[in-house]
């Protein structure tokens, strides 16, 4: 930590101090980050809510879907028993990437010397 701090130049130092002392600038930066992360999480959960949450409703209004078979397995069994897991993992993977990018943007903003 110490080595890291000595490497920072003084302007970045000031921004970090602004964060710590909760000046208006620092406060606005944190609010922006929280808002970006929350918006990302909500968007991702909407993808899941529509992708998975729509299934019971879809099966209910279109019972013929339930009778459709692919390689001898009924579609609902295939979607719920197999496909849903890679789907969830894919959404999670995308979220981790995007959330880390948000944090990187925030870090760059705070540490950018010419600000």
């Amino acid at each position, binding site marked *: *930590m110490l080595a*890291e701090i000595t490497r920072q130049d003084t302007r970045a130092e000031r921004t*970090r*101090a602004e*964060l*710590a002392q*909760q000046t208006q600038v*620092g*406060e606005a930066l*944190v*609010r922006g*980050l*929280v808002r970006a*992360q*929350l918006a990302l*999480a909500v968007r*991702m*959960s909407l993808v*899941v809510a529509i992708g*998975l*949450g729509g299934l*019971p*409703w879809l*099966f*209910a*209004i279109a*019972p013929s879907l*339930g*009778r459709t078979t692919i390689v001898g397995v*009924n579609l*609902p*069994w295939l979607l*719920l*028993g*197999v496909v*849903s*897991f*890679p789907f*969830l*993992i894919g*959404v*999670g*993977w995308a*979220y*981790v990437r995007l*959330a*880390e990018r948000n*944090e990187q943007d*925030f*870090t760059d903003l*705070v*540490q950018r010397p010419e600000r």
Partner: protein
Amino acid sequence: MGNDFVVPAIVAVTLVTVGIGFYGLRLARTTSDFLVASRAISPTWNAAAIGGEYLSAASFLGIAGLVLKYGVDVLWYPVGFAAGYLALLLFVAAPLRRSGAFTLPDFCELRLGSRRLRILATAFVIFIGWLYLVPQLQGAGLTLATVAGSPYPLGALLVAAVVTANVALGGMRAITFVQAFQYWLKLTALAVPVIFLALQWQADGRPAVTPPDGPTFRAATTVVVEHRATLTLPDGDIREVRPGDELTFAAGDPVPAVSGVATDANDWLLPSAAGDDDRGLFATYSLILATFLGTMGLPHVLVRFYTNPDGAAARRTTLVVLALVGVFYLLPTLYGVLGRIYTPQLLLSGQTDAVVVLLPGAALGDGLVGRLLAALVAAGAFAAFLSTSSGLLTSVAGVISTDVLGRGSVRGFRLATVIAGGVPTVLALHVDGLDVSQVVGLAFAVAASSFCPLLVLGIWWRGLTDVGAAAGVVAGGGAAIGAVLVTVLGPPLSGWPATLIAQPAAWTVPLAFTVMVAVSMATRRRAPADIAATMLRLHTPEALRM
């Protein structure tokens, strides 16, 4: 049963668990030693440990049993159990790790600075922990009774005693390696037999899972009924059976329709459709909500996040957990499906939760391979009981010793462990009629209606106050607890009240969120003064820490 491999396999799993625990104890004697050591643990190891602790009797035995009994509608259990980790990842993982909270009561105090809220959270941790422990012990009793023919209470008491002693002596405390080992053991114990089962199914000429005339017995079978039920025989006769009744069937006889079980091929194979039952759709959505949002509120899940070095690692760990449990959950469904062919007698006896442990023997016969695989599955089941109950017991005993007994001493922790283990043991001996997964589903509903809103609003909304949080937890969590008590103790219900009580999350979760937000807004002045500093700490990357 006469399988002489089963008991040695169970004993071996228990000894290895206890053994590694004690060996690890010598390596990590104090909490700080453990925390320092944990910083060196990679996300993969940590994730396997979380998965090992998470995959419980409900996952290992319960899902296959439910699939056997009810069919496609219950596939939402495994999907929800896995998706819970996605909700945890999206809304909780990184900020919770950055908060530095070790338990849920810690989080309440850190975020809202209220001692009284901490006590309320403690009460909920204890209730959810006990509710989740009961089906683990129940599963142990059932498994041992099935594979070794022992009386039901013996297995429950055995696991309770082993786990309580182990946790009380410190053997299981936070030993990542044991839990990671249990994950791989559980995965192997389901994955290897399933290969043999699939080959056997091929060799048998791929018998249909849902034959046009309903399920039939493949071999002459004698069924001893365990739960009261109404049977509809193929000739249309209706017969009441009671526990202890013996029914004999010849090979090729059709399986009678059993009340409360999806014996009919279409009920089992197809999702509940519109028009035929709105309540089915409501129950499905309620279950989805409980499992998606309940995982983040389970006491033994959150503790493990503290072992990540920082918020970004917590996120990566959660993603790996999601992948590991996702792979695992592909398997139990196959056992439920093959159980329709090879073990239809369980539909009559009511012991559908036993399908995973009975299937290898039933499909592969009493040869060496069949017996070895049956022993492997039994060992995996015991790994499930031991790891989940150890994690739960450690969490519950931890909050009892610090927040109820009020002393941090080792003696206090041991006393707390005995209390924490004793209550669910007594309960488990009295409720053997409930499906393992359904009791676990209720625990998820309580967690989703109490801790989920507390965590999500606490992490993302500056306006949350201590009074608002307490009101939301009492309203939503209290309603869910009421539903649990009515389900377990109350009279049998029918129609809409039965659905609303059996799957309460769809109304208790919105209730909790609404009350929490409304009361917080009404008590706006009580919002903590240091909220800006807290938000900074929860959400900014560690690299910027001042």
